[in-house]
Each structure stands twice: as structure tokens, then as C-alpha cells.
């Protein structure tokens, strides 16, 4: 094992961590199983890649991609809150539509960015830190995301978001429209996911139509690992914890690759990791000889 492997896992983990935070917002805070994610991460990459090869500033594309993710969230929110389609199905419908939309945006299934400048080429740190250029840029973006989200969750709107996932009846009795709050949550979550997608595309040097498949499971895996390590008591800790969860998850994936698994086995491995973590409480209570079903 060498340093390069560690740095790559760390960088990937941090970037995908932003996506995992999006998943945390919908699955945990809002209690909304949102599958839009698989589509909106590709959307972020597609928008950025297309803009970059057209000649736009790569940093500008981050912002546009984030907005595009927000629109994807709006559509899922619309399907659910206005048309009363079940959360799971709303997400799947948007995700499926996004496949065609992403192809339209890109014009072809794959856009390589090798010959174009990305944010990682534009961002230069002088002195002897320049070999950590990419890592530092990624860390900066992650920090901005973390701080923004934590501050947001302390505002009136943030409180409403947290309470809506917890007890919608109470939120309505506090004169707040839970439908609008769901919409806002989905917009924020998918913005983060698309931002993550935009970064991934630029980091790996291409956008691909199928890059989003299984994203939701990777996101859930990161959330769960983060929660197991940090605990679920306070969001001040959980939110950075999810980033750590994502880094550990990418690390274990890289480790699996190095120990001989094919890249095509990764989705199965990811699913197994999630199953393992989700079933831990049951296995523990089984081994402890007591029946203690605590579903959540």
C-alpha cells in the first residue's frame, strides 16, 4: 500500500461525501427515500462536462451544475407533493427521465475532459504544497458545504426541515406547510448531489451516462458507516461523520480492488457492505441471545 492509493481514496471519499450528505438530508433528516440521486449525480457531471468543452469557466460550471441538481429535486418534489406520487416512485421517475435528459445534455454517452482545463488545473497553490493541489481544493469545497449545511440547520427554515422528517403533524400545527419544506429539502439534497457529480466528472476527467448507477447505495453506505462511527445524537457531529464514512467506504472499495476484485464486482460489494451494516443490530442482538427489534 502506498501513499498515492491513500490520497486517491481520500480525495474520492471527500467528493462522494458531498453526495452522501445529500442522501443524509433526504433519507435521515427528511425521512424521504429519494432515488433521484442516481440521476442527479450524472446530471451534475453532464452539465459541467458539456459546459467545459463548450469553453465556460470550470468554476462557473460547478455553480450551474448545483442549480441543475436543484431543479431535479424540484421535479421529484413536485411529483410527490403536488401530484401525490409516493416518495420512492417520484424519485425513480425523475431518475429515469434524467437518463434521457443527461444524454440530451451531453449529446453522446461519454465526454472526455482530458484535453480541457478543469478546476483542478486552474487552482494552483504555490510553494511546496502544490502536490496536494487537488486535495486542498476538494477540502475547501467540502468545508464550504459542511459549514453552509450546519449553519442552515440552525435557522428557522432548518428547524422546520428537521422537524418535518421527525413529526409532520407537529410542523403543520406550527403553521408551516410541510409540502414546501419537503420541496426545499429535496432541492438542497439534489443540489449537493449534482455538485458532487460535477466535481467527480472533473476529477476523473470524464462524464459518463452510466456513472450514476448505484450512487444511492454508496451514499447510504457512507451515511450508515458515519453513523456507526460517530453516533446519531447530534447533527454537528454526524454531518462531518458522513464525510468520514464516505472516505472509509472509498478506502474499502479501493482495498477490494487491490485485493483482486474486478471493477465490475464493486456494486455487489457495496450492496454487501450496506447489508452488513444495516443488519449489525440484528446480528448483535441475536448473538447476545435477546430479541430486541429496534427498527427505524
Amino acid at each position, binding site marked *: 500500500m502506498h501513499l498515492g492509493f491513500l490520497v486517491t481514496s481520500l480525495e474520492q471519499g471527500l467528493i462522494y461525501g458531498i453526495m452522501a450528505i445529500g442522501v443524509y438530508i433526504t433519507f435521515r433528516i427528511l425521512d424521504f427515500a429519494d432515488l433521484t440521486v442516481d440521476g442527479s449525480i450524472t446530471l451534475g457531471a453532464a452539465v459541467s462536462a458539456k459546459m467545459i468543452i463548450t469553453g465556460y469557466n470550470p468554476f462557473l460550471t460547478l455553480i450551474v451544475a448545483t442549480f441543475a441538481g436543484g431543479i431535479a429535486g424540484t421535479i421529484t418534489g413536485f411529483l410527490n407533493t403536488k401530484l401525490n406520487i409516493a416518495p420512492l416512485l417520484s424519485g425513480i421517475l425523475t431518475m429515469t427521465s434524467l437518463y434521457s435528459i443527461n444524454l440530451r445534455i451531453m449529446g453522446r454517452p461519454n465526454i472526455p475532459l482530458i484535453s480541457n482545463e478543469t478546476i483542478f488545473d486552474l487552482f494552483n497553490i504555490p510553494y511546496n504544497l502544490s502536490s496536494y493541489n487537488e486535495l486542498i481544493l476538494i477540502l475547501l469545497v467540502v468545508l464550504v458545504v459542511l459549514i453552509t449545511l450546519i449553519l442552515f440547520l*440552525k*435557522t*428557522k427554515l432548518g428547524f422546520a426541515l428537521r422537524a418535518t422528517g421527525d*413529526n409532520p403533524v407537529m*410542523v403543520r400545527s406550527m403553521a408551516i*406547510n410541510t409540502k414546501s419544506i419537503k420541496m426545499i429539502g429535496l432541492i438542497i439534497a439534489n443540489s449537493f448531489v449534482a455538485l458532487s457529480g460535477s466535481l467527480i466528472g472533473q476529477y476523473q476527467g470524464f462524464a459518463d451516462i452510466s456513472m450514476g448507477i448505484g450512487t444511492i447505495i454508496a451514499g447510504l453506505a457512507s451515511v450508515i458507516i458515519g453513523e456507526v462511527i460517530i453516533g446519531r445524537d447530534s447533527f454537528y457531529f454526524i454531518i462531518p461523520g458522513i464525510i468520514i464514512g464516505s472516505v472509509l467506504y472509498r478506502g474499502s472499495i479501493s482495498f477490494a480492488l487491490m485485493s483482486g476484485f474486478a471493477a465490475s464486482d464493486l456494486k455487489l460489494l457495496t450492496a454487501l457492505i450496506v447489508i452488513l451494516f444495516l443488519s449489525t443490530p440484528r446480528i448483535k442482538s441475536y448473538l447476545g441471545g435477546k430479541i430486541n427489534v429496534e427498527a427505524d
Partner: protein
Amino acid sequence: MLKLINVTKTFNVNTFNATKALKNVDLEVKNNDFITIIGGNGAGKSTLLNSIAGVFDLTCGDIILSDKNITDMPEYKRANFIGRVFQDPLMGTSPEMTIEENLSMALNKDTNLSLKWAVNKKKRGRIKEHLSEINLGLENRLDTKVKFLSGGQRQALTLLMATIIEPEILLLDEHTAALDPATAIKINELTQKIISNHKITTLMITHNMKDALNFGNRLLMMNHGKLIFDVQGQTKENMTINHLLEIFQKKHKQGFYNDRAILSLA
């Protein structure tokens, strides 16, 4: 100030299971009325309060509050002037949020949702002040998550949250029924204190006839989706449980022999 005109609610309309929960109810509630509502299971008491709160659309009829027709106003908008406490202590608070966070949402009820801080120093002061008024020592546990509180504490908190911004109408749906007797008495006293201090117009469902007689200035009896008895003022003061039973039997041949009603005579 609150008027229900010909309010009717049928659940599962046009199906085999259609149930008429409210049948052409007319009711006029005056300012500062404190009304207790009794009746057997399925009499339509909760449906009556839910219609006022706007939980569902009415089958027909109108609801007028302070000369404004609120029949089509969504539930969350009515919450601006209607406070509610539910039977289930889990319904009124957000368990994963702290006492302070829950109360701050109640304090923010009459302001717009925005990106302003939900809690600040001034609000924390007000929250502490309000909490010390209810005498449960909760003012020293601001950062405790509500899920760690007992049913009684949660119900007291819900009551405070429902009235901290004074509502035009307070709806209490058997809010002490899920509590142990000693706690129920405490919450009842607290309810009485808050309502009389702030002169809040209140509708309270209870299955306890004694409470129904002791509390408030007016009493309604419901059966099969209809108001069958309405008494107020001095006449109500002079009533006893036996009177209530007699009236019920006279008005309704079927009798009041429903397990809950009998169990609650004490």
C-alpha cells in the same frame, strides 16, 4: 366568533364503508367560551375538532372564524390562529429536537420562515420564562431531546407550544387520556391556568364527565355525529353526572351504556 354552519363529514363517500361522522352540525362559539365536549366512542367529537382544525375537507357546510370563511383554508394556515393538543403525547412535539428547539418553533409560529437563526438570546430568555411558569423544572433542561421526556412532560410542553403565541381557538382532544391519573390532574390544572390567564376560547373533548362538568362555562354532548345537548352558564354549574346520564337516555333511547362512558363516571 367561531361558527359552524351545517357541517357534515362523511368518510369513504360512495363506498360500502361510508360513515357519516358529522351530520349537519350547527354551532356558535362565543369569545372566551370554554366548552367541554362529551359523548361515546364514534360520536364525532374528534371529527368535530378535526373539521375546525382543517385536517380534511368537509363533505358540506361552512366554518366561519371571526367573520372569515375558513372552510377551504389548509390546515397549516389555520394553525396560525388555532392551537391544538392531541391525545397522543407523541403527536405534539418533535422527539429528535430539544426542548428549546421545539419551543422556538412555537415562538416563531407568527413569523415568516427565513434564514434567520431559530434561537437567539432573547428567545432563549422567553423560553426559560415560559417553562418556569409551568413548574416542571424543564427550564434547566433546555438541551434535552424531547424523546427523553415523560408523557406528562411532553403534554405540558405541547400545551405550552399551542398557547405560547396566543391562539384565537384552542382545541384539546382528550389531551389527558393517555396519562396516569396523577399526571392527568396536573395537566388539567395547567390547562385551566393557561386558559383562564389568557382567556383563550377553548373546545375540550373529555371522556371524563366530572371534568366535563368541572371545567369550562359550557358543555356539549354528542352522539352519532350530532350535537344532542348544549348547556351553559348557571344551568351547567348546577348539573350533576346523573343529570347528564338522564338527559342522554331521554335524548337517545339506545342509552349511554358504552364501556368508556361507564368507566369514566368516577
